[in-house]
């Protein structure tokens, strides 16, 4: 099976055109003028949402709060694309998106501000702020507040709140499986953002998947405590490559660029990116990207919101919803052994059918679980 390629990134061409139109403007610092002029150009060049048909407006507004930005080439951008797609295809109002929010109090304040403004649905795309979801939902009963990639016990979940969860460990597991079968050195690395359950499950899922392919594989894990610190990500990846790692799995956002740069500094070094098909950024080192179809998941949650289907519960989206697919290998296709491709396809089928049971966040959300989990339990019925 060659992994399918979901349409996550189709904005390159239009932006390049827009950029060319502005080349002369920035240099002398004519900032406000330049920004306005380019904004217009971009619209004229076809915008970013592709050729979807525009739906009639409905009386439903959505606000998005995310730890990244709408242009981070990663998690934040994928979430934002989902809102944009919903605005075009479902006709909902995009009330705005608050970017680069990290702490619970930031989510609480911004979420409250949108709810006060009359948002029907407030999405908090950060797994580390369940308390903000609860707080805003409790304070603003007219809004529906949903948090991504988190778990809230049913007893604590207000009637107008929900969680939605891409089961990321499954995709990370298959990426780890592929990496272990592709690695020539028997050493893999992980460079991750912050250590919290929704992210740790990706790190540990990758580790477990690698062990499932090769029980003797070595996996080095580093958390850099940043989504954006490119220099830290580069240094972390450099250290791993220097120690003999040949494939690094990235679980951070735009800081990932630093990992690509570290891979480019040597031969036979590869990166498996996350959240967004990063092939264009570094075609010579990006082996594949784990795509969590966050755009589709976000859009689906908004659709359920408009239909009044959201109940106070946790919704999960797995491989069957396209969450955890791997992007194509593109020109690095020859790097992946044919046997690895066949086995990968089998494992993905096994996960989808339930023959292989990748543990959930309760297990893999704990640091070190990927290295210690009993491999036999994966296939136990």
């Amino acid at each position: 099976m060659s992994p399918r390629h979901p349409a996550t990134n189709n904005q390159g061409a239009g932006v390049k055109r827009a950029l060319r139109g502005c080349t002369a403007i920035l240099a002398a610092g004519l900032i406000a003028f330049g920004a306005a002029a380019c904004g217009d150009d971009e619209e004229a060049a076809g915008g970013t949402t592709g050729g979807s048909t525009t739906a009639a407006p409905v009386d439903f507004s959505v606000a998005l709060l995310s730890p990244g930005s709408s242009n981070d080439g990663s998690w934040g951008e994928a979430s934002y694309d989902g809102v944009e797609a919903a605005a075009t295809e479902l006709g909902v109002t995009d009330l705005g998106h608050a970017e680069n929010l990290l702490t619970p109090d930031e989510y609480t304040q911004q979420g409250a501000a949108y709810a006060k403004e009359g948002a029907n649905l407030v999405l908090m795309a950060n797994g580390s702020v369940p308390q903000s979801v609860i707080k805003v939902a409790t304070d603003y009963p007219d809004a529906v507040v949903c948090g991504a990639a988190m778990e809230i016990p049913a007893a604590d979940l207000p009637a107008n709140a929900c969680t939605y969860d891409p089961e990321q460990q499954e995709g990370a597991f298959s990426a780890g499986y592929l990496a272990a079968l592709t690695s020539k050195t028997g050493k893999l690395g992980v460079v991750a953002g912050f250590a919290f359950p929704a992210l740790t499950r990706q790190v540990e899922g990758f580790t477990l998947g690698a062990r499932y392919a090769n029980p003797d594989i070595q996996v080095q894990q580093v958390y850099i405590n940043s989504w954006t610190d490119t220099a830290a990500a580069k240094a972390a990846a450099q250290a791993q490559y220097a120690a003999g790692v040949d494939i690094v799995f990235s679980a951070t956002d735009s800081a990932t660029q630093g990992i690509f740069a570290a891979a480019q500094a040597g031969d036979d070094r590869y990166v498996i990116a996350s959240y967004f098909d990063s092939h264009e950024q570094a075609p010579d080192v990006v082996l594949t990207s784990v795509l969590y179809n966050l755009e589709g998941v976000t859009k689906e949650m908004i659709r359920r919101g408009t239909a009044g289907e959201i109940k106070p519960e946790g919704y999960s989206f797995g491989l069957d919803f396209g969450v955890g697919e791997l992007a194509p290998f593109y020109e690095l296709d020859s790097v992946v052994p044919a046997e690895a491709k066949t086995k990968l396809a089998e494992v993905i089928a096994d996960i989808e059918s339930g023959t292989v049971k990748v543990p959930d966040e309760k297990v893999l959300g704990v640091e070190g679980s990927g290295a210690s989990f009993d491999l036999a339990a994966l296939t136990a019925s």
Partner: protein
Amino acid sequence: MNSTIVISVFATGIALMTPVLWAALGEAIAERAGVLNIGIEGVMLFGALVCAWAIREGAGIWTGLLLAIPVGAVLGLALAYLWVSRGADQIVSGIIGATSLLFDEFLKGVGVVTSLDEISIPLLSDIPWIGEIVFQQPSVTYLALLAAPLVFLLLNRTWFGLYIRSAGEKPRATETAGLSVPALRYTAVVVSCVLICFGGASLIAITSGGFVTNVTAGQGFVALAIVVLGRWNPFLIVGGALLFGVSQALQFQAQSLGFLSSLPPEAWLSLPYLVTIVAVVVAKSSRYPNACGVPFTPAGAAR
């Protein structure tokens, strides 16, 4: 722990300190002249943005770096106008947000990752340990190390240096001696911002060639601390920056350090900041230039 790891830690540390060193050297000049340039993080971000933009446009990494110089000068003039002419409170966090806005407009979407190659200095790079640590770095790192003695000479061995130091210590006396304190401070802030902006650009040049929101990750504020730690002396500032860079590099090797690998990652991540704080506390009491951060009103000027 073997020699490879030690070399890797120090070599990475030197690379990591480069943008901070540029920024700290620039900041030292402004503070010596009596201006506390808090806009350092924003100016770095602008340098990073401009460099990334030039690279995206296909103009090459060096064009991006050089472009940061006039941009730094323009920002310096703008900030000097606020601080020197208007006597404004010296906090300009707004320009950080501006880079995010500009990024949205100019650089949205993905770019191709690229970075400056390391240059091995012939002969010197063959020296065991030191050669591999110091002499296999990107060119902007060498330039930063060369800039330190130049800034030292500028501050301590030239008339200009003497004048701006007097403007930072006793501006009233400087004025009495027939010098224009505002003009000195303007010049110092412009030079300062050029170095800081170049530092921001160097961050892009040695990491990935691409801009991301808040890519500087607080390095401007670290530079502020390093200036105090280095007591406004460019040579000591190199030491302070190195301390920060190496302690940051150490965390990424923690896995290979045997017994140390059992420490929680948070401990490693906070290490550079703890080291900086401890160093500032332990260092002998340091004193800001007397008039640093104090707006100056020329005699006879109406307020």
